């Protein structure tokens, strides 16, 4: 190395620098030659194109993916509508144009000026939307007077149309104009101000599939902004079409049945986890969101005490009440606390410490075994099972059965519910767990909170002998040309098995026998749901909103409406080979048996009516 180093001296470097200089000068010559070509040889032509900025981009809106039900019934469509726009740079003087617009289509000038002022910051060449959805009559007038209205244009946009007003509104969701935060977030690539994006439900969760891709056109315009020549076109790409798992006739039946009450219904195929229907009442009109809603309309929606904007099936949290007894039975048998022959005596109440815990049936059930306890929902039986188990063992079973955490359905703000443990209470309230509280937990009252969808997954798992499915709402996704992109049946991962119930086959058989008797025995709490020809199994629940004190002699029926109990019913049918699982909750519906069970019965009849 050393002997070479001396030879790479300054003289040698100087020689190499000459080459560098030559290269650099050559590049500068190329740059100057190119500038000469652009500015002097082609200068005239470019000067012409630069006047009035002749070359412009126009965007082409993609058509959003359509939404179908599981059998291909179209439920969400797009209709064309027309936006009146103006390009400020072309519409000069702007006052003149606005006055003309007032003459032709009668829009007050002050409104238009306000719209223009609001868009002060944006480029003079970006079209400003003056009025959305002007209708075909106004469109004809504008087209006829096109040459009198320089800078004014009409933009055709596909608008979302929800075919069945209010139907499955919470599941499908709605669109809204993209806001500045969403634009900045970077999550909506390819979107610009004024675009509509999914804000709720499937429309939001599957936004990336549905949206499609903007296209555009490079055009040359003349001095009044009219297109003279189209230079380049990139077609918009339509969004993917989505087939939901819901069965539209069943969905509509569910909504009819919920008419007039606040509550939710969800229906699942227990063999697959497909959601067949999901209704939350009261509902809202999705089309109103797309058209743009007034302040008053919006306020009345969000201040409505029955919370129409909430999807009660996945966002509503309620104490599970007696439907929780399924968990208590599973825990009791699996832990060896009871078996099928264990009986307890129910005198109508259970004394624990210095408190008397009452059974819902004041006269008592007498001696009951586990099957009868489920069938007749004997509280005293479960008080004793719960007491033997303790709160933490109960909580472990509840969580293993999928309660207390989101099911993983891909919908907005799914609530997780709450399964209390002794440690939890200590952490959150600072007070130690009282043994008596365990008794309330065992019958699903107390701190327990579940969502209807969790209960649906649970009852489905009981029905299918223990498989806990993640509920799926999408059956398949296809491109606009019909190429399959996603199919829930296609691969094993798509059908997500979230786990198994922590219960043996024998335990589940016992539970199922109890649930069968609920509906099919004369003393069963949901005998009302019995239908000749269809074997239904289920469990009622009644959520006490006023605690059942020992000396409280008032009856549910006499309470003020907002203090009346919530009614639950979870069910599946046919009992031996289940094809449908249903959860119903009716807020302030009083009794699970009277308010919720008939709804489930009608749904099962509707669904199985066709297949039996």
């Amino acid at each position, binding site marked *: *190395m050393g002997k070479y180093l001396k030879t*790479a001296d300054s003289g040698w*470097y100087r020689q190499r620098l000459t080459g560098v200089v030559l290269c650099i000068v050559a590049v500068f010559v190329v740059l100057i030659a190119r500038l000469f070509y652009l500015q002097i040889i082609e*200068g005239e032509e470019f000067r012409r194109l*630069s006047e009035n*900025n002749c070359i412009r*981009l126009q965007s082409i809106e993609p058509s959003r993916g359509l939404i179908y039900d599981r059998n291909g019934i179209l439920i969400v469509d797009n209709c064309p509508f027309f936006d009146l726009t103006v390009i400020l740079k072309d519409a000069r003087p702007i006052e003149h144009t606005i006055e003309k617009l007032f003459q032709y289509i009668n829009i007050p000038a002050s409104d238009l000026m306000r719209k223009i002022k609001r868009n002060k910051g944006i480029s003079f060449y970006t079209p400003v939307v003056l009025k959305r959805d002007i209708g075909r009559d106004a469109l004809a007038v504008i087209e006829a007077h096109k040459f009198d209205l320089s800078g004014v244009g009409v933009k055709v946009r596909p608008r979302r149309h929800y075919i069945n007003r209010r139907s499955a509104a919470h599941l499908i969701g709605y669109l809204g104009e993209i806001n500045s935060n969403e634009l900045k977030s*970077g999550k909506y690539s390819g979107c610009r101000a004024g675009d509509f994006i999914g804000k709720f439900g499937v429309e939001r969760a599957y936004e990336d599939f549905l949206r499609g891709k903007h296209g555009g056109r490079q055009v040359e315009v003349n001095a009044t902004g009219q297109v003279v020549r189209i230079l*380049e076109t990139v077609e918009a790409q339509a969004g993917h079409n989505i087939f939901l798992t819901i069965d539209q006739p069943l969905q509509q039946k569910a909504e009819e049945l919920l008419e007039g009450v606040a509550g939710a219904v969800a229906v699942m195929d227990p063999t697959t986890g497909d959601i067949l229907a999901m209704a939350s009442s009261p509902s809202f009109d999705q089309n109103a969101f797309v058209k743009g809603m007034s302040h008053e309309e919006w306020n009345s929606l969000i201040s409505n005490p029955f919370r129409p904007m909430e999807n009660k099936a996945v966002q509503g949290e309620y104490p599970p009440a007696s439907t929780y007894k399924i968990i208590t039975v599973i825990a009791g048998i699996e832990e060896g606390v009871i078996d099928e022959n264990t009986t307890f005596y129910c005198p109508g109440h259970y004394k624990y410490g210095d408190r008397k815990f009452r059974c819902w049936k004041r006269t008592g059930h007498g001696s009951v075994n586990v099957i009868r306890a489920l069938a007749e929902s004997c509280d005293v039986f479960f008080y004793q099972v719960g007491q033997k188990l303790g709160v933490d063992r109960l909580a472990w079973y509840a969580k293993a059965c999928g309660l207390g955490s989101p099911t993983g359905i891909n919908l907005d703000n799914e609530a997780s519910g709450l399964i209390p443990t002794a440690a939890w209470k200590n952490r959150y309230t600072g007070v130690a767990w009282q043994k008596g509280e365990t008794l309330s937990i065992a019958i699903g009252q107390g701190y327990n909170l579940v969502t209807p969808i969790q209960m649906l997954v649970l009852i489905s798992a009981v029905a299918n002998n223990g498989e806990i499915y993640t509920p799926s709402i999408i059956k398949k996704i296809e491109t606009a040309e019909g190429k399959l992109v996603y199919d829930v049946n296609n691969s094993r991962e798509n059908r997500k098995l979230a786990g198994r119930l922590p219960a043996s086959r024998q335990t589940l058989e016992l539970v199922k026998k109890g649930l069968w008797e609920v509906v099919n025995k004369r003393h069963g709490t949901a005998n009302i749901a019995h239908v000749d020809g269809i074997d239904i199994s289920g469990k009622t629940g009644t959520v006490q909103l006023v605690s059942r004190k020992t000396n409280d002699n008032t009856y549910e029926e006499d309470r003020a409406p907002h203090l009346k109990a919530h009614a639950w019913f979870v069910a599946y049918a046919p009992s031996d080979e289940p094809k449908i699982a249903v959860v119903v909750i009716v807020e302030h519906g009083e009794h699970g048996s009277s308010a919720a069970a008939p709804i489930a019965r009608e749904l099962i009849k509707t669904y199985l009516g066709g297949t039996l």
Partner: protein
Amino acid sequence: MFDRRLLEHFDWALLGVTFLLGCFGLIILYSAVTAGVPTPQKVLCIKQVVWYCVGLCAMVISFLFNYRMLDRWAHVIYAICIFLLIAVFFFGNYVGGARRWLILGPVSIQPSEIVKIAVIIILARYYSKLANVRGLVLRELIHPFILTIIPFVLILRQPDLGTALMVVLIAGSMTIFVKIEKRSLAYIIAFCTGSIPLVLYCLKGYQKQRILTFLNPDRDPLGAGYHIIQSKIAVGSGMISGKGFLKGTQNALSFLPEQHTDFIFSVLSEEWGFLGSLIILMLFLMLIIIGLNIAYKCREPFGTILSMGITVMISWQVFINIGMVIGLMPVVGVPLPFISYGGSSILTIMICIGILMNISMRRFIAE
């Protein structure tokens, strides 16, 4: 202690050209952020002036000490810069889909700009000790290759293709300058050409599309292709003498926000025409010639290679940026030195000028 020769050999011509480019830069920037824009952002001009002041201080600092210190400290400087790049990776500010900026109190800096100097310094150190008339053989090139590939990958991941390519171009030019041994060069060329089909084979469809669009912007008429058309219209419409200061109209079109950063040359050409563009080009050429002359006059290898590396960096930025604006080069984000808006870019170029002055002043001082 103060050596009078330092002052005698101060490079006034370099200072003069720098001053002129800085002034023109501010004038053009003012036009770019005000003329025909619905919301003028004059505050950017003020920020740029502040950055020039900071840059001036950095320049003075860069010529006060003996540049041979850089030889000794090369590894430390390199390590700090790489550390900053890694910091960007974790704490960088996320803007428009890329992580490029580090927020340090009131200012945000772009370490990828400064890292270019560190690469030049460390390569100058390495080559000054190794170079010989036979040329470098493959084994000797492994070290510089690693030194280059680290910042390249880090910058590419930000992602900032333009700056990443700059690092490779600078390192490549410096390596060719100190000469690669003939057979080694043949191997390298053979390997590169041989691996092209393999890389193309491995790339996914959309990546291939992106490369094709990069090489030919017309494939993307709504994005890069549209920018290029508008940029060409702006440049061409300037004709001989331009439309006049603040009279540009293409500004108003929607190829914001690049018009005050990467596409600023189009504003210059539109408003000042062929003559204005020629003046700026000549100033850049003068700057480059002065830089190469410093390399020429310097009598020890480290100074020669260092000044050559800095000059070559400025040249590449000028070529790529202007080439892009006038439709000769693909669209990549490379700022035009002195003129494009951007604090880190100004700071970097001023440090470079300072180092050039440093080398020029101390050419008579022996180690």
